[in-house]
């Protein structure tokens, strides 16, 4: 692998990885607070993008650069749709099965199946409207316009899309700000308490209902942002959400499960690792999905507390 190709893979990987990191951040936040997996999260990323497109541009979007007003609306609708979808999935499909603060035992089959059914419903119902295999999504954040050509030259006659730099910087800034804000508020207090010692936090009654809902809303908005950053890069299929969500879960597990920094770091590690595998001469693009999923299965089987973890998963 030449230096240029390597650099290209790393830059692409950081951009892909920060998207995983944003989704993983939301997943981890929800997990740390409630010990449930937000399994519809990937579908919320893609679903919120398509809802934004449907609301602003209609069901047959064209990939041309949207106007200023449309861009603003797109960003607002996608972020709002992400938050709303996430809250709705929680309230409708998961809340009935989660025992808050030990009030009653959580019904794992219930909330797992509920969340997966919700994710399935999101992509299939949108699929009734968006009937094509995949769509080119307009770039609401105009990141390709950061320079004239849209690409940056790297050594060895290779190039990388300029939007990847924008994706990485925006994603990183938002992720870090979110973490800082979270750590100051009540949500942060609850998060720290329950990630240190879930049982005690539960006994203290820390995760009150409103905080859990807030966590889902914030996670949903982060998912919407991840969609805005990720979607314009390639033809987007409604079915891409599940794998994206599972990769984010893999990222959360690579970082210590339950740690916000770990989730972000895990996303970057996974993104760069995936792009290096794709660029590796003997591997290739077919490993982009296979590798992270296989890694996640292996982690779940061997280290269910996450790669950096020390907190054992409670066996029910």
């Amino acid at each position, binding site marked *: 692998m030449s230096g240029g190709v390597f650099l290209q893979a790393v830059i692409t990987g950081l951009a892909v990885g920060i998207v995983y990191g944003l989704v993983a951040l939301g997943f981890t936040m929800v997990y740390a607070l409630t010990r449930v997996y937000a399994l519809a999260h990937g579908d919320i990323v893609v679903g919120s993008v398509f809802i934004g497109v449907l609301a602003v541009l209609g069901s047959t979007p064209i990939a041309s650069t949207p106007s200023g007003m449309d861009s603003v609306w797109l960003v607002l609708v996608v972020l709002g749709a992400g938050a709303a979808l996430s809250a709705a999935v929680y309230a409708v499909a998961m809340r009935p099965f989660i025992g808050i603060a030990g009030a009653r035992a959580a019904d794992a089959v219930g909330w797992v199946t509920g969340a997966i059914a919700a994710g399935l419903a999101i992509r299939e119902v949108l699929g009734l409207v968006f009937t094509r295999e995949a769509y080119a999504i307009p770039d609401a954040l105009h990141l390709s316009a950061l320079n004239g050509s849209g690409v940056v030259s790297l050594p060895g006659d290779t190039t990388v899309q300029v939007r990847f730099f924008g994706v990485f910087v925006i994603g990183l800034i938002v992720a870090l700000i979110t973490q800082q804000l979270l750590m100051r508020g009540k949500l942060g207090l609850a998060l720290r308490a329950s990630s240190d010692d879930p049982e005690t936090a539960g006994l203290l009654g820390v995760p009150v209902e409103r905080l859990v809902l807030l966590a889902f809303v914030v996670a949903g908005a982060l998912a919407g942002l991840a969609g805005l950053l990720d979607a314009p890069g390639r033809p987007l299929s409604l079915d891409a959400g599940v*794998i994206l969500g599972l990769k984010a879960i893999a990222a959360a597990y690579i970082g210590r499960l339950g740690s916000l920094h770990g989730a972000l770091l895990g996303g970057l590690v996974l993104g760069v690792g995936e792009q290096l595998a794709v660029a590796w001469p003997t591997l290739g693009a077919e490993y982009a999905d296979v590798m992270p*999923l296989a890694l996640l299965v292996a982690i779940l089987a061997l280290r269910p507390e996450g790669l950096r973890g020390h907190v054992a998963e409670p*066996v029910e």
Partner: protein
Amino acid sequence: MSVIEVASDLYLLLAVLGLAASVQYAGLPILGQGAFVAVGGFGTVLLAQHGMPLGIAVLLSVLIAGAAGYLLALGAARLSGAALALATWVLAWLVQAILIAFPSTFGGGQGLTRSTPTHLVSPWLGVTLTITPVAHLVIGALLCALALLALWRMDRGPVGLELAAMRSGPGLAASLGVPVGARRRSVLAVSASLGALGGAGGAVLLGTIAPTDVSPLLSLQLLVAVLLGGSLRPFGPVLGFAVVAALPHLADAIASGANVPQERMRGALTALLLVVALAARRPAGALLSPVISRLQLRRQPLPGTSTSDRALTRVVNTDGEPPLVARNLTVNFGAVHALDGLSLELRAGEVHAIVGPNGSGKTTLLRVLSGAMTPAAGEVRIDGTAVPSGQSTRVRAGVARTPQRTVLLPGMDSLSEVSVGARAAVRTPGAGTRHLAVTPQSRRDDEQLTAGASAALHLVGLSERSGLSTGSLGAGEQRLLQVARAAATGAHVLLLDEPAAGTTPAERRRLIAAIRNLADRGVAVCVVEHDMRFVGAVADRVTVLESGRVLASGDPATIRRNPEVRRAYLGDDVESA
């Protein structure tokens, strides 16, 4: 419906029945049955393409899937239900991603094809057999019937009792000596094998298999079929599958009417069915449970054994070390010392009460002694040997515990409930298989099991309740039943966590008699109890805990006089009373 469609559905039903073994019987949430169907289908076609005889190809791919299921459970031994659901869901997507990522092997989106109908040629016998769709129909129906029969037989046998305990929670099952990990492995291997067999049958029948045939959506549809079946065993999943099998036809009709993509409509309806299956789970179960309990055959206590408690008698070696010795047990919760270097002996034939204020470490002590919790330091010796933590390990070593809160298995009668414990006493290798094969030995196993359970019921004075559903018993009788269930394991060290909670005075007298009876037969009984009058009536020795340490220990009269105890605990008690 054509013959081919029915035969194809029968093969899918086989995968559903396999999944039912994990989901409906063992209570394991498996969301990736489609992955095993894929291994069977793609494996068979691939191996046959490489020149392997078809029968061997089917067998080999079924074995591979079974081994994969076994390995998955081996890896997932420590996983909670939710993590297992996640792991299997990821597996479904991983297999799908692999099928799509390597088109040169798996044929890409088109998948693989082979010629149909299949001709089986035997050069030795000089015959050629053609497997027509009708033959597939017969094979599929036979396999499903066999699977149903096996599930039905298993449910009523020793393994069925263990799986019932696992459904209520791995913790309870382990506390009754069920080898949870081993059961998980075999159940998952069976699920995966039947899934693969269904996949192989379908691929041979249709002559084609594509990634979309074994997508994660299929995994969800198979799960829906099992969930819709509720707790109705063994036919619930068949009814559930009838609904699922009708789904594509309904979806396609709606889709063509509304002019939307068929695949999307199928997915949307699957999501709807999942929600329906979840929402209907409890009410439907409650609605059907009177019918179900009437359908279940009652095991009658065998004449001659119901009034005898010989089956519970244990020869206890009273020489040397006491049956249970704990040394320097230390457990910390953060900065709190729940147990602070605590040492304790439980002697054969002695009832040893543990008392102390709330938070003094009583329940933690029982959890450590029963193996449910590993102490940070210290050891537990049973009959002179240090035994590692782990509840089923301790039960095998002869230490059983009753839970603090009443936990009973739903939908069981009292005798079966206690039989779950008795199973630990008469555990013999291969009992489950023998039961499936209805060997003469299995009948003797059953009789031994029933005799042990009856004796335990007799011990706590619940013989007359043996045929009644546990849910219909009073709260106090349920406490007694828990004691019987633990005693039925044949343990010579019994740990009872507040056994008298919620009992009436009459029941308390029965409980005291039962505990004394156990002690008279050499069992070391440890009782954690708040009710001091109960302690005074039952205990030979009282140990008072405070802040994870032994404050005092001795016979009840001495303890009552101990000034330190009066100040720390009894005085407290008087004030609050």
